[in-house]
């Protein structure tokens, strides 16, 4: 047990903190609106230029070869500095780990540097109108185009966050027409400007055009758009969703900084005199702290070579519920001002999506019960 960082890690923290303090932009428009997305892209490119965009990646792809501990430190500092959400997150935190695990050397060399530089902007293409929680019900299909040396994609994807602003999408397609459920699916990476692809943005609860539907009509992609092998998409996709549920998308830094802001709000709003509100503030702070400790333990296991597996569902349940409670508490403190458009009310609306995306919390509880506790499936 040693909960201290090494001098080298502390130096890394100091460097990150100094750079962030000097460079973090404030008051950007929402990254899920057209105007804000452009502002966020500028920030992403500034991060990349200073090699802070993908710290844990190899240097040749734009990273710093940072250890997983350094990555955690960077995330802490990033949110502590009040830096903007990462509009590149679905690429760098979800697709990239999957490319590192399943991609060919050529795919890695071609895709990762452009992703790091925010030249290619990736969105997810998991859900379909009839396949939300039930990802294995995927109907969008891929038909082999021998002559063209690739595949023809047809179908509809939906709930694609920032799809209207991105350049590429990754997702599952049914490549074996006779297959059912988890079998016969292939994981494709699709340029959204390919002929036959149409993107329609639509509005989220917070008013931003943050969602998109993506229609594919016989859209051609070459063979190297396949990640991890034809008809083997399910296990590749599971690696991506594991990242989404687990650590990489939701490091503790984000919740620690939100909890600190909540404590500040409580001090400002006289919660010293309101024991009920104060108790909820403390609960939220404790939960953010507990998420940090859980993560440090988990990263110790990962660093020792253990796979997180189904336990990433515990992360997802915990952070999604924590995020909702934390923002609800802020709204309670704000009283009649709670309904004003502002960072806390927007944060609340954003948090509400947490128990739904990346596999609903109902699905996560099934996974925990069956695969961690070993309860019978049928």
């Amino acid at each position, binding site marked *: 047990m040693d909960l201290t960082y090494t001098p080298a890690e502390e130096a890394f923290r100091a460097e990150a903190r100094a750079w962030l303090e000097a460079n973090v932009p404030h008051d950007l428009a929402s990254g899920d609106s057209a105007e804000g997305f452009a502002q966020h892209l500028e920030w992403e490119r500034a991060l990349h230029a200073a090699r802070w965009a993908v710290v844990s990646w190899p240097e040749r792809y734009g990273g710093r070869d940072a250890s997983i501990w350094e990555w955690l430190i960077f995330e802490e500092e990033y949110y502590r500095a009040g830096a903007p959400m990462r509009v590149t997150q679905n690429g760098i935190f979800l697709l990239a780990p999957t490319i590192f695990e399943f991609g060919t050397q050529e795919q890695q060399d071609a895709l990762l540097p452009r992703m790091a530089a925010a030249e290619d902007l990736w969105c997810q293409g998991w859900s379909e109108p009839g396949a939300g*929680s039930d990802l294995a019900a995927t109907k969008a299909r891929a038909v082999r185009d021998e002559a063209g040396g690739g595949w023809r994609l047809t179908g509809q994807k939906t709930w694609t966050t920032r799809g209207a602003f991105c350049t590429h999408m990754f997702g599952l397609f049914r490549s074996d027409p006779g297959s059912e459920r988890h079998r016969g699916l292939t994981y494709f990476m699709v340029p959204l400007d390919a002929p036959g692809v149409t993107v329609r943005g*639509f509005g989220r609860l917070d008013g931003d055009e943050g969602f998109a539907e993506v229609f594919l009509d016989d859209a051609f992609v070459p063979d190297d758009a396949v990640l991890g092998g034809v008809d083997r998409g399910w296990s590749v996709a599971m690696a991506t969703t594991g990242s989404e549920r687990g650590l990489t998308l939701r490091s503790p830094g984000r919740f620690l900084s939100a909890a600190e802001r909540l404590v500040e709000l409580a001090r400002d709003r006289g919660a010293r005199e309101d024991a009920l509100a104060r108790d909820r503030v403390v609960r939220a702070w404790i939960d953010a702290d507990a998420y940090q400790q859980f993560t440090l333990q988990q990263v110790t296991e990962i660093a020792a070579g253990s796979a997180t597996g189904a336990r990433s569902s515990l992360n997802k349940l915990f952070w999604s519920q924590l995020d909702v409670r934390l923002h609800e508490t802020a709204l309670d403190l704000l*009283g*009649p001002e709670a*309904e*004003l*458009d502002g960072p806390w009310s927007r944060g609340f609306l954003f948090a509400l999506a947490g128990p739904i995306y990346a596999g609903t919390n109902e699905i996560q509880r099934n996974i925990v019960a069956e695969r961690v506790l070993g309860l019978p499936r049928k």
Partner: protein
Amino acid sequence: MRFALNSDQAALREAVRDLLRAECPPAVVRAGWPGSEESDLARVRRVWDQLGEMGVLGAAVPEADGGLGLGAVALVGLLEEAGRAALPLPLMETAFVAGPLLAAAGEAALVERLAAGELVVGAALDGSGIVPFAQVADALIAGDARAPGGELRLLRPPAFAPLESIDGARGLGRVAADAGLVLDLDAAALAAAWERGALGAAAQLLGLGRALLALAADYVTERRQFGVAIGTFQAVKHQLADALLALEFAAPAVLRAAWSLDRGAGDAGRDVAVAKALASDAALQVAATALQVHGAIAYTVEYDLHLHAKRVWAGARAWGDADWQRTRVAAALGLLPEEALR
């Protein structure tokens, strides 16, 4: 002992329900968002006119002042229906708070216009100066009805700074503390206005909750995943059963509080507090559940759920949130010195 509306009250409620079902579908709720693409305030105002023709707007005004003189028991049913429809106008504030208040203040001309549907009144009596529906109202009442020696002011024409809300239909405005003219009201009239507002808010929350629960029950019956309707999953069933439980036990408390108010019972304030606390918690729970069992579709503005859910998030915190109301109950139970309250 008879815990139920009488037939006149039930018939009036039914009539309002039918009217709103026909005239205030989700498209009209969307039309009530000032400044949105779908905004059509004239269309919304036509619903108001019809409510005026039914006598609903002056319903709580004493007969001597030209109203129907109906009590809270009759009104809470109507307000629940307004909540169910997510009516994007301040029916509660106008008919249940402003009507009796303006009558008490001797503003006979205004009362007449209010009852005729010519005066949409926004009101915020919590001292915040943030008034819902300011952007669509013809007059505003603002001030602090809870502070000792508090006063209320009438703004006409309303002067306010518009505020962006997460729920566009709330049409918020901020008014200055010294704007408008002080209404001539005694402390009892102020206190009564606050109780009516809190009770009316509770009734609206019930209606909002019932609409959300009905939407959710329909959706999970239709939506299929894993080869079955998701309403067959126990996790979905149990969340919705718990949501119904919360609503079904809040509803009688609202009706009882109305009866206590009408009787001028000594416990009326406590009963209103119980009603608002239960209705706030129930509506928040139903909104969270409805959103969760819908999944991603509920998270879009194209789907109707948010029209009600956003109203719940605002309404649960308005007119005293559940914490505040329970503190009032604590005082009534002798668990708190009265002075500790404001």
